[in-house]
Every structure is written in structure tokens, then in C-alpha cells.
């Protein structure tokens, strides 16, 4: 029979109290004496080795695919940070005269583009920018989404108002907003982030709201109200922790979504200017030459890197959300 491994001090305590009795060597007659009865030992009996984050991490670690992608993701993240500091890492936009449209070779690992820029540096610079956009959007989305969503779901009076606002904003085309913003602000990374954040938090807010609606009237919330707990504390202590799972999921999905969105906005010609490489820009540039088989690497390298990134975020996010759901925890 597989034996249970004791994992921390609490369990050890338990094993000691049992072991104490066992370790003594009784004689045959002693066996039939009453054992010392300790009610507190009985209280301890139902103990399970549980801590929320511990279980979350443990179930995550058991998911091999997710761990693989986590490592990949961390690797990529680390590399994008480190890449510009590497020796001989050139400025991404440097033009090498005469080195136009070179296929991948020793000197230019991912080849060069039509004006002689090194795609390797361009792609990593693009990954940096795109990830920055993704992360920023995801953070804003999470923060705004949670605040709005919790208010929306918890404060009954706001429900009607927020629902209407949601319906309205959901129907104002994002393109219109992006275009108008590109008039008001200069096209650039921060503008892009701003434009995306403007609408993206709505979905998170709605998700949070639906979740809050489900848990709002659970007994433990009523209990808190009976105890006179302030509303903000209920939100922070009773609601937020229950949103961890869906929030991590949302955040992790928001990053690939934002990168995809960046590609889209670039596609319609409103993206970040070309002198700032982003994955969207690189894909757009690659698209113009994709039908030319000798040049299609200019599309495929950014596409592959982008896919690896979005897939890792997607899988890691999903698996983490699964792991964060106590339903999937071993008690």
C-alpha cells in the first residue's frame, strides 16, 4: 500500500501522537488496558494537509504540458529582457547596406528584410514591444475589470446603470475608438495600449460581475453582513479571493488576445509605426512577401514566434486557472 508522505509540521504532529502509543512495547496483558483517551487527538483526526496556494502550485506542477510551456514562456520572457544586453546585439533597426532579403544564414539567423535589417533582432525587439503591450493591457484590464466588475455585481443599485453602459460600450466599434484616439494622440506603443485598454476591460468586468452575482448571496457573505463587515472589506476579503481562478485565466488570455489585437490594428493600418518593431508590424511586412517562396521566411519567423508565445500564455493561463480552482485540489 502506498504510504502517505508527511509533508509538513502539522502532519508530523499527528503522526507523533499516534506513534507515541505505537512505539511503546506493550505486553500481552497491557493490550487490553484502556488507552489514555485524549479528545483533542480526535479533533485533529480529520486534518488534511491543505493550503490553497500550496495545492494550487502542486496541481499545476503535476501538469507536465503546462510546465513545459511555463518553462518555454519564462525562457522567452527572460530572453527578450536579456537579448539587447548580449554582446554584439545590434540596434534592431540598423540597416545593413547590401544585405537585403538575405535568407537565414550564419550571420543573420532569421535573415534580413527588404531594406537590410536583421530579422533576428527585429523579432526580439518586436516580441519585447508586443509583450509589453500585452502585459500592460492585461494588467489594466484586470485592475479595472475587477474594480468595475465587483462594483457592478455587488452593489445592486449600480447593476442597471452598469449593464446599460456595458451594452453601449460593447457596441461602439473599437476601430472607431482607435481611429479617434490616433488623432488625439500620436501613434505609438502607449497610444496602442491606451486604445486597447479603453474597451478591453469591459469583458473582464462582465465576467467578474457574473461571478460576483453567483457568490454574492452565498451564506458566508450574508454572515459577513450580519457581522457588520464593511462593504469594501467584503469585496476584498470575501469576493476577490474567489475570483483568482477566473482572473488568472482572463489575464493569461488577455495577453495573447492583446497581441492578436495588435496584429489586427496593424492590419487595418492603425498600428504602431513601423520604426518600432512589433510582431504585428513584422507580420504585416512579412505578409507582403509571403507568396514569394524564397522570402516567406519573413512571414514565418514572426508567425512562429508569435504562436509560441500566445500558445504558452494560453496554456499556462488555462492550466493555472484550473489549478487555482479548489475543485481540482486534493483535499
Amino acid at each position, binding site marked *: 500500500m502506498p504510504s502517505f508522505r508527511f509533508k509538513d509540521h502539522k502532519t508530523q504532529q499527528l503522526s507523533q501522537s499516534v506513534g507515541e502509543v505505537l512505539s511503546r512495547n506493550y505486553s500481552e496483558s497491557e493490550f487490553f488496558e484502556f488507552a489514555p483517551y485524549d479528545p483533542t487527538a480526535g479533533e485533529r483526526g480529520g486534518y488534511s494537509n491543505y493550503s490553497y496556494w500550496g495545492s494550487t502550485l502542486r496541481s499545476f506542477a503535476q501538469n507536465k504540458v503546462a510546465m513545459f510551456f511555463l518553462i518555454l514562456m519564462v525562457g522567452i520572457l527572460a530572453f527578450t529582457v536579456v537579448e539587447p544586453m548580449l554582446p554584439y546585439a545590434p540596434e534592431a533597426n540598423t540597416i545593413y547596406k547590401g544585405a537585403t532579403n538575405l535568407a537565414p544564414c550564419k550571420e543573420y539567423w532569421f535573415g534580413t528584410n527588404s531594406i537590410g535589417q536583421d530579422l533576428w533582432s527585429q523579432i526580439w525587439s518586436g516580441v519585447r514591444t508586443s509583450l509589453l503591450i500585452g502585459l500592460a493591457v492585461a494588467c489594466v484590464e484586470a485592475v479595472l475589470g475587477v474594480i468595475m466588475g465587483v462594483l457592478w455585481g455587488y452593489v445592486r443599485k449600480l447593476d442597471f446603470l452598469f449593464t446599460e453602459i456595458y451594452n453601449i460600450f460593447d457596441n461602439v*466599434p473599437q476601430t472607431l475608438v482607435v481611429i479617434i484616439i490616433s488623432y488625439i494622440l500620436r501613434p505609438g506603443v502607449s497610444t496602442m495600449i491606451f486604445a486597447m485598454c479603453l474597451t478591453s476591460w469591459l469583458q473582464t468586468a462582465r465576467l467578474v460581475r457574473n461571478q460576483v452575482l453567483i457568490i454574492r448571496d452565498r451564506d458566508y457573505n450574508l454572515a459577513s453582513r450580519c457581522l457588520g463587515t464593511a462593504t469594501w472589506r467584503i469585496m476584498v476579503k470575501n469576493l476577490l479571493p474567489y475570483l483568482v481562478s477566473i482572473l488568472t485565466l482572463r489575464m493569461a488570455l488577455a495577453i495573447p488576445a492583446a497581441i492578436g489585437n495588435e496584429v489586427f490594428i496593424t492590419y487595418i493600418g492603425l498600428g504602431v509605426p513601423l520604426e518600432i518593431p512589433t510582431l504585428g508590424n513584422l507580420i504585416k511586412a512579412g505578409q507582403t512577401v509571403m507568396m514569394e*517562396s524564397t522570402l516567406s521566411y519573413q512571414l514565418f519567423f514572426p508567425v512562429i514566434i508569435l504562436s509560441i508565445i500566445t500558445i504558452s500564455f494560453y496554456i499556462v493561463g488555462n492550466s493555472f486557472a484550473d489549478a487555482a480552482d479548489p475543485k481540482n485540489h486534493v483535499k
Partner: protein
Amino acid sequence: MAKYIFKRLLRSLLTLFIIVTIVFSLLRLMPIEGYFQNFEKMSAVQVELGLKELGLDKPLPAQLLDFYSDLLHGDLGVSNKYRRNVPVTKIIAEKVPVSMAIGLTSLGIALAVGLPMGILMARSTRTKHKIGDKLGTAFIVLIQAVPAAVYYLVIQFYGTKYLDLPMQISSGRPVTYILPILSLALGNIAYYAMWLRRYMVDESNKDYVKLARAKGVPASAISRKHVFRNAFVPLVQFIPTSVILTLMGSLYVESLYSIPGMGGLLVNVIQRQDNTVVQGLVLFYAAISILGLLVGDILMAIVDPRITFGKKEGGR
């Protein structure tokens, strides 16, 4: 029920009103150059006259009033820059059927493929190695995680380069529709398969399934007669929305294969600053998406006897 629908429609009207007003006002933030073809060479008088013709010289509230009074007469106005002097309704009416035909075909295919796929995946979760489920999940992850713009390109690249399929549609040649329909269908296949699988797995842990098993109902009949229907209920709600999305067309796919549909129309007219068309389109989109939600709810009520309209769920 009729009363409920009526009330909801009435409320939607208010929402529509606000949406259109916001869009209307946002549009007026654009620089006036965009309203003219040849601003560079126009005199001040010409510009002024042009603005007057477009009704842009009046203060915003007056413009709004004009717009709504026209709207009440069923007049959405005519295009200024997209197709000059052509009524907005005509522009939209010409494009909707195109997008819809392709969209509905792909949706049909997506349902025909996605739903069985979801069922097979759900069943596979009960087998030892869950191979079917893993394969299906890999597909879903790929489609959902990789931006559509990217896999559309890949499909076009391989489809035209290696399968030698045409790069643009031409009516009367069905092969030309393969790639765009495939591109459009993939997303929905993944979507429906994923949700159906999830709901089926959730449902098959419910007590009534256990009871059915205890009754001796064969596994296949359980998943067909009991689980599928229950799992399908929440999906029913999405179908009208999916249908409606086909009305909006797909910017990418339509532009990649030069499909003369709705996709990209909005982007196009926003970029050309064709206010009337933008307004008309936003109104159209908002109206149908609100309608889609309503139809989704009604469908839900039809397939699920527990849901009744009008009454708030009383107690249990």
C-alpha cells in the same frame, strides 16, 4: 412572454439611441479634411459649402436632431465618400447577403464538425489515454491561442501554394470558396467543440446521468439522449449571436479572398470618414446584436422548460 419581449425591445431602443448618439458625437471629432476628396485644392468657401451640404455646419445638437428626424422617416441618409450619393441602406443591403451566405455555410460546417468533435472529446475523457480529447484540445488551443489573422495567412499560404486552390473567390466556382469557408469555420469549430466538451463533461458528472446509468441505459444513449441535450442548452444561446456575426462579415477573410461582403466595410468607412454610413452601420450592428441576444434568450426558453420569461426566478 410577448410583454417581456416588448419591454426588452423598448429598453433596447433606449440603448440604441445612446449608442448612436455617442458614435455620432465621436465622429464629429474628426478633422474636416477627411470629408473632402480634394481638400488641398479647395477654397475656404468651398469647404464651408461642403460642410453645409453634409449638415456639419450646425451645432451638434441641431445635427443630432436632424439625424433623428430623418431616422424616424426611415432615412439613413446617403454616403458621402464611400459611394457618393448612394443610400446607406442600399450599400448595406447589397453586402449583407454575401457575408451571410459564406458565414452561414461556414457556421453550418462548424456546427456539423464542432458538435460531433465536442461529443467525441467528452467521451474520450472517459477512456484510458484520452487520446481523442488530447488531440482535440491541442487543436482548440492552437486555434484559440494563435491570432486569427495569423492562421488565416497560413491557410491562405498553404492552400494556394500547395493545394493549388484559387486565391480569390469567383461566383460559380465552388472550389474558390473552400479556403475562406475553412478559415471562417475553424474558429467556430474550436469554439463549439470546446464548450460542448466542457458542458458535456460537467453534465456527465450530474446525478441524473448517474441515475440513467443505474437504469441501465447504454453509454452511447446516455451521451446522446441525456447529456448532449443538456450540454447543448447553454450553447443554444450563442447560436443566434454566431449567426449575427456572419452578418458582420470577417474583415480578414473577406479581404484576403476579395469577398464583396460586410467585413471591412466599417473600417473602410470609418477611415474614409463617411459619417452617414458609419452611423447607419453602427445602428445596424447594434440593433442586430441586441436582437441576437434576445433571440438567444428566447431560444433558451424554448429548449429549456425551466426558464420562463418575465418572472424573476422565485426561490428554488
